[in-house]
């Protein structure tokens, strides 16, 4: 496959991020490793509170201080360890090399500035472009996201735009400096279904044009099927399975992945009741000693309760953390 020859943009090794609260240490991300290549989209999937967003914020080193801290691991971006950079160097990375799109387009734009001014800010700051050149870059970014008549639109204030348009503007801001890596944190959750489909198609096109690597954070396997080349499934701060998208739908190894895919409503199958996973995810302060999914797992065994499972390769780029595999 062509993808396999593409250069790796980001490589994360054993990343551990915790929040230190009054109740104790919350292990939000507990030793995860993954990589993304040029022009590839990695889906980060899992239920609320499993550490998807914290992973995204850790990559930018923008955890809420002082509670949140990266304890361990390596974040290699084109071979450079981001955790070793100074605060100032890190600021130069943000927006320029890695950018991020947040969930809600209604609130991610500053109401007092025009769209043009807001896209121009990273362009001016991170690329040092001024005047006419900055304007050209802004228009190019708006064009890239298919915003019609960009010369006119850039004088609009956010409140004059619809939700879908605003999210495109947010995308334009993120893409304005031609980043190597884009982290999209559920960018379509706040949009309605038709706009969502448009937006996803748009992102595929942007990726084809710019070869940007994308980490797509979502809880929606439908979005994963449409957008992602590979998927990493997270549960309680750990990655439990990672595989190419078409493989994971055909043959999920981990019981949690299987359960997640099973609980997606489908039009082509008739079911009495939608499948759901029983129980609750464990508290991240008080984690069980063995496999984290074991209290909810239909296939749990003795060993699951005692020891954490290790990674097993079950196919090309397909890794599972589960005892029943070995």
């Amino acid at each position, binding site marked *: 496959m062509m993808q396999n020859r593409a250069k790796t943009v980001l490589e994360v090794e054993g990343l551990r991020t915790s929040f230190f609260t009054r109740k104790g240490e919350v292990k939000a991300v507990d030793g995860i490793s993954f990589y993304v290549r040029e022009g590839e989209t990695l889906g980060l999937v899992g239920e609320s509170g499993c550490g998807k967003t914290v992973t995204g914020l850790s990559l*930018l080193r*923008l955890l809420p201080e*002082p509670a949140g801290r990266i304890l361990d691991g390596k974040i290699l971006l084109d071979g450079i360890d981001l955790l070793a950079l100074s605060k100032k160097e890190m*600021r*130069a*990375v*943000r*927006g*320029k090399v890695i*950018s*991020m799109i*947040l*969930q*809600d387009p*209604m*609130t*991610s*734009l*500053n*109401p*007092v*500035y025009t769209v043009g001014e807001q896209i121009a*800010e*990273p362009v001016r*700051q*991170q690329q040092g472009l001024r005047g006419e050149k900055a304007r050209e870059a802004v228009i190019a970014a708006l064009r890239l996201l298919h915003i*019609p008549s960009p010369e*006119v639109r850039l004088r*609009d204030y*956010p*409140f*004059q*735009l*619809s939700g879908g*348009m605003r999210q495109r503007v*947010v995308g334009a*801001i993120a893409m304005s400096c031609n980043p190597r890596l884009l982290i999209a944190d559920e960018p379509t959750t706040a949009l309605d279904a038709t706009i969502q489909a448009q937006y996803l198609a748009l992102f595929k096109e942007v990726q084809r044009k710019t070869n940007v690597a994308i980490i797509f954070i979502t809880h929606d396997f439908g979005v994963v099927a449409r957008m992602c080349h590979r998927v990493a499934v997270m549960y309680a701060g750990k990655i439990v399975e990672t595989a190419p998208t078409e493989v994971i739908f055909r043959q999920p190894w981990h019981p949690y992945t299987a359960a997640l895919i099973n609980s997606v409503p489908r039009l082509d199958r008739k079911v009495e009741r939608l499948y759901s996973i029983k129980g609750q995810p464990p508290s991240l302060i008080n984690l069980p000693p063995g496999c984290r999914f074991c209290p909810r797992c239909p296939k749990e065994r003795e060993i699951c309760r005692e020891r954490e499972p290790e990674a097993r390769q079950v196919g090309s780029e397909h890794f599972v953390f589960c005892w029943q595999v070995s």
Partner: protein
Amino acid sequence: MMRVQITKRTANVRPRKKSRPRHIHVLKNLTFYLPLLVLTLLVFTAVFADVLAPHDPVAVSMQERLLPPAFMEGGTKKYLLGTDQLGRDILSRMIYGSRISLSVSLAVIAITASVGTVMGIVAGYLGGATEALLMRITDISMAFPPMLLALLLAVVFGPGFWTVVLALSILGWAPYARLIRGETLKLRYTDFVAQARINGASSLRIMVKHIFPNIVNSLIVVITMAVGMLILAEAALSFLGVGVPPPAPSWGYMVNEGRSVIDRAWWISAFPGIVIGLVVLSGNFLGDWLRDKLDPRLRQL
């Protein structure tokens, strides 16, 4: 994509059938136009005091002491609002007095609003120990009785223009800091601030470029209301004899001067008193009006 044009007016008010005649518009917004007129007049008077005043405000004329206003029996056209114990023209003194009232308030506002805004934004955005320290200083400032401190300062430094400004500023920034910190706290966790950080903006840049423009509205409202309050405070200090010292004519000082002869010559205290009241009221009305107009809830986000 169709361009949706929503302006403040069309969004919040019933659509206008036809454009209303101008005078109706003015009448309906009297609480805006009247205070605006009063304050504009005040600024105009202060600027052109030299031209407007019919007499020298400090010229003493012992033959013409305690003359009543022109419309009363015994009054002359020469002194429209009468004279005081030293035969000085009340009208001229009031006209010159507007300069003191206005310059004191503007100087104090410039100092308190800037100090308070900086303190508030820094405390609100940085949080942690910085916030705790700055807010405790603010609390302490608000616990001091301002008049007593002003009197103390006047005793230490001697009365004068800058003593008054200092006395009113030294505690006056605290309410600004409180308000701005509150506004900043709200903004600090918004997505657009997060987005700015994602795009690599420094803390300073976020405070100046993203937070400050979003609190300007509240600041304008508070400043407008402060004008009236400060004119009142300056008058109070002058009344107590620690304001801008005589012979400079200050409204509060004039009220004080007339006190001893109020049974025979009420006009000495009354006219400056009325003007103080009018200006303070105008400031408050205008502040209220602005608050309604600039309320972020009424703005289309």
